[in-house]
Each structure stands twice: as structure tokens, then as C-alpha cells.
């Protein structure tokens, strides 16, 4: 049986996912992906009605059971400093990350 996730597709996915894997991890993950996809292909054996309605959630919400939207009222978070305190690198209230090199036109 041919593999759906070839090493090329796999490497592309790894890049998209912002990951970087050693060979052992890559081999395991690619094998598992292909195994799972085999299981997923079972879905193709189901005849699906054209008018089958897709919903985001299994439970259906009515107008009365849907929570009301938020009123536009300002409620400042009491301790933004605690959020910033979680960041690995902070300087003068800014969160710091490395740059991405930039290309110049011409």
C-alpha cells in the first residue's frame, strides 16, 4: 500500500507546523500519520447525503440557549503585569523576540 504522507509531504508539514524533528521522531510520526490516515479513509465508505447540514458543534443552539453577546463596557484586567511576567524575555514592558531577516527590493 502506498504511503499517503511521503517524506516530502511530511517535511512540508513539519515546516508549516514550526517543528524540527530528529530522524527517529520523524520516522515514528510519519508512520503513525499514515496509519491514522488509513483509519480516516474508512470515512469514504459512508454515503453522505448532499443536504447533510454541517454544524460547528454537535449540540444545536437556539436563540434562547445561545448566550447573549457582550455589552461594550470597559472592564480593565486587574493585573496585566502578571501576564507579562510569564514571558521568557521582556524589556521595558515589551516582549522580546528575535528578528526575521528582511529582503530589500533591487
Amino acid at each position, binding site marked *: 500500500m502506498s504511503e499517503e504522507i511521503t517524506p516530502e509531504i511530511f517535511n512540508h508539514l513539519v515546516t508549516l507546523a514550526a517543528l524540527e524533528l530528529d530522524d527517529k521522531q520523524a520516522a515514528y510520526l510519519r508512520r503513525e500519520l499514515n496509519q491514522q490516515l488509513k483509519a480516516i479513509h474508512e470515512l469514504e465508505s459512508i454515503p453522505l447525503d448532499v443536504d447533510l447540514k454541517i454544524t460547528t458543534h454537535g449540540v444545536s443552539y437556539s436563540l434562547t440557549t445561545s448566550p447573549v453577546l457582550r455589552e461594550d463596557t470597559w472592564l*480593565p484586567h486587574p493585573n*496585566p503585569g502578571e501576564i507579562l511576567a510569564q514571558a521568557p524575555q521582556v524589556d521595558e*514592558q515589551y516582549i522580546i523576540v*528575535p528578528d526575521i531577516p528582511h*529582503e530589500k527590493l533591487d
Partner: protein
Amino acid sequence: MTEYEVVIGLETHIQLNTKTKIFCACKADSWDDEPNTNICPVCTGLPGVLPVLNKAVVEKGVLLAKAMHSDIRMRSFFDRKNYFYPDLPKGYQISQYDLSLASGGYLDIPMPEGYTRRVTIHKLHMEEDAGKTKNAGNLRLIDFNRCGVPLVEMVTGPDLRSANEAAQYLIRLRQLLRWLDISEADMEKGHLRCDANVSIRPKGSHQLFTKTEIKNVNSIDNVKNAIEHEVERQIREVEAGNRVQAWTLDWDEEKNELRKMRSKETEADYRYFREPDLLPLDLTQAWLDEILADFPELPLERKARFISEYKLPEYDADILTGERNLSDYFESAVQHYAGDPKKVSNYLMNDILRMLNESGKTANQLQLTPTFLAEILTMVDAGQINTSTGKGLLEKVETSAKSPRKIVEEEGLGLVSDDSAIRAVAEKIVAANPKEVETFRAGKESLIGWFTGQVMREMRGKADPKMATKILMELLKK
């Protein structure tokens, strides 16, 4: 030499002027705040927290959709647009993809040259803003204050044909946004952001050629400037036998030049899917009716009506509908005034606008209300005060908030139309200037103006000049 046609589509991001962000209760405007102080767990994407949609965002979005003649969807959806960027804390932006708040629509833009350009709307959806990134050497400084500020993204069709048309579109859009109180629409502050998709094609062609995207332009002048630069560059490339490549360009305002950002060859796959943390957005007819109940007459409609109903020149009508408060002010003053609307317009265009500029107020904030202005005009018309007293009253009413009539009474500014008082002064002037009387009587009747002026000066301008002339003529011809 080939003649080229320019094809431009604009992607605008409109920051809504709600009090709070789109999915959390942080305030929307943090222009003056220290970095990372206007933040909470929701807008910084901390684990486990959830978005809760701000009702006012939907309401403003509906107003804009209506103004753009878009079809409003009674059920729309939020979707996740996934990508990595340090100022995008969740790693996805909550946006609307295939079933957004509204679809289609257009805006008719009158061009100064006299023709009208219809600009179609391809996309109109609500989404959250990302944070801000500053570069500092080989580091990036991230500020999340702006994360989660509500935006409406609006994308036009490739309908604009020059940098100037693009500028006119932005001018009219900005006017509309302020008119509807949807956005402050200040480009310098990023309330209104614009990316321009620019391509050229031989005149007569209907094909769309490879376009470039200009980003990061923060004023209408710069949009115009950047597009002009890019059109020139594309023509240069094509003339040199090269192909235009689908670049993303960055406008460097200081250097007045375009920089290439990243190749668009591999269009990013954002892997959109429905945002499971939010339910579908259902508008009920009742809510829609409520939102649209006070939907105002739009500036261009109002301008046309001012021209036809009040016989204003187009120039006046354009300025008076530039801003909604001013235009409401004008109309209210006209309603309180029985005379020619053009006179009201003159006062507004000359004096009131200057007053607004100097004070930084909007028309609705003036103490000199439209009713007071109408009162001043009525008094001038009735000869109760002269024109210069009338103009002087504008400031006095504005500073004191007293009615013009009361000020005239208190300060005795009214014209003297008492025959005997004017006659006494006129007799005095005639007696004191025998030489001029002689010249007049010798036939130089144009001297009457000089005599009237003397009377007026003597009476510090408070005499009814018509009556003074009449009495003087009587005395001189005796």
C-alpha cells in the same frame, strides 16, 4: 509606445471605535498607553481563555455593510485564520471567511473631474487586530495593547484606475466612517489602514495582470505616492522586457521608496476553519431593525439634496456635507432661519469653519447653536444690527452662550433708527463741513457716501445707514 491602464484594488482595515475590544473587555483605544498595559488573558492568548463577542462590533459592522449596499447575512460565522507571528498571540486570528457578515456591495465615488467611479466591494468581514511589532536591531519588540481591537476588513474589486482614484476612494470612505460614527478613521493612528494591489495592462485590455501588493502605508498622500511609484516601476519593468512579479512591497515613508517584503509565490495556507469557541452569529430582524432605525442620510445623498433643496453651489454643498455634525448644523440653522440658505452657508464656510478649526471643536459642540446663528442672520436682515455687528456676535455668543438678542440688548449694539437722533448728528456733520457741502451742492453727489460715513463714525456704527443717507440727502438738498 504602449499606453498603459492602471488597475488598483484596495484592502482596507477599519478600526472600529467601540469602547472595548472585539472579544474581551479591554479598551479598544490604547494609543496613549504604555506597552502591554491594556491587555488581559483573552487578548494575549493565554491558555484556556475564550473569546466573547462584543455586541457593538456587530452593530457597527452592520451599519457599514448597509452603507456599502452589501447584503447582510442573517447568520454569519467566525473562522480561525492560522499562522505564526509573534504579534498574533493565539497563532490564529479570529476572522470571518466564507460566510462573513455581509457580501457584495459598492460605493460610488464622485471624482473631482466630474465623473463617478463605482467601486465594488468583494469582501466585508469582522476580525480582530494583531499587536504591534517594533524592530530594534536584531530584536523585535512586541506590544499586545492593540491585540483584539475590532476591525472590519473591506476589500474592493480591481475597479480603481489611478492613484488619484484610490485617494478619492479613501477620502470618501473616511468621510463615511466618521459620518456613521463607526471609526475615527485617522490613518496616521492606524484607524484606517490600506494595502493596495496594483497592476498595469495595455489600454483596452480586460485581462488582469500580475499584481503587487503595497503594504504599510499610513496616509492618503502616501497611498497615492506609493501607487504612483509602483506604477512607474511596473511600466519600467515591462518596457525593459521583464515580467512584473507578485511581490509584497513595503512603503518606506522616510526614504520615499518601496521595499520588497516576501515572495508571494507560495500563497500561505491559513487553514481556515470555523472558530469552535464561538457560536454562529445570528441577527434577528428585530435587532437589525433596531440597529438600522436611525440610519442616517449618507454624505453624497445629502450633498445632492443640499444642491437641489437649498440651491447651494456644489462647492458649498460638498464642504457642508464633509462632516456630519457640520451638515446637521447647517440644516438646523436653515430651518430656524427664513432667509436664503446660501447666506447660512456663507457664515458657515467663512466664519464657523474657522471657529471650529481654531477651537478643535465639532459643530455640535459649539455654544453658538444653529438657533443662535439663525437669530443673528435674522437681525441683520431686519436691519436691527449691521453685518459687522452680526459677525462680531458670533464670537460673543460662542464664549458667553448667551442669546445674540440678549447680547445686543445688554451691550446696546442695535442700530439707531430713531430719526431725531440721526438727524441731530447729521445736522452737526453738515454744519461742520461747509466745504464738502459746497462741493456736493455743486453736483458731486457721490460725496453722500462720505457724509454717511461721517455720521456712522460719529455714532460708532450703530446708525441705520439707510436712514442716515436719507436724512443727509434731505439736509444737503435743502
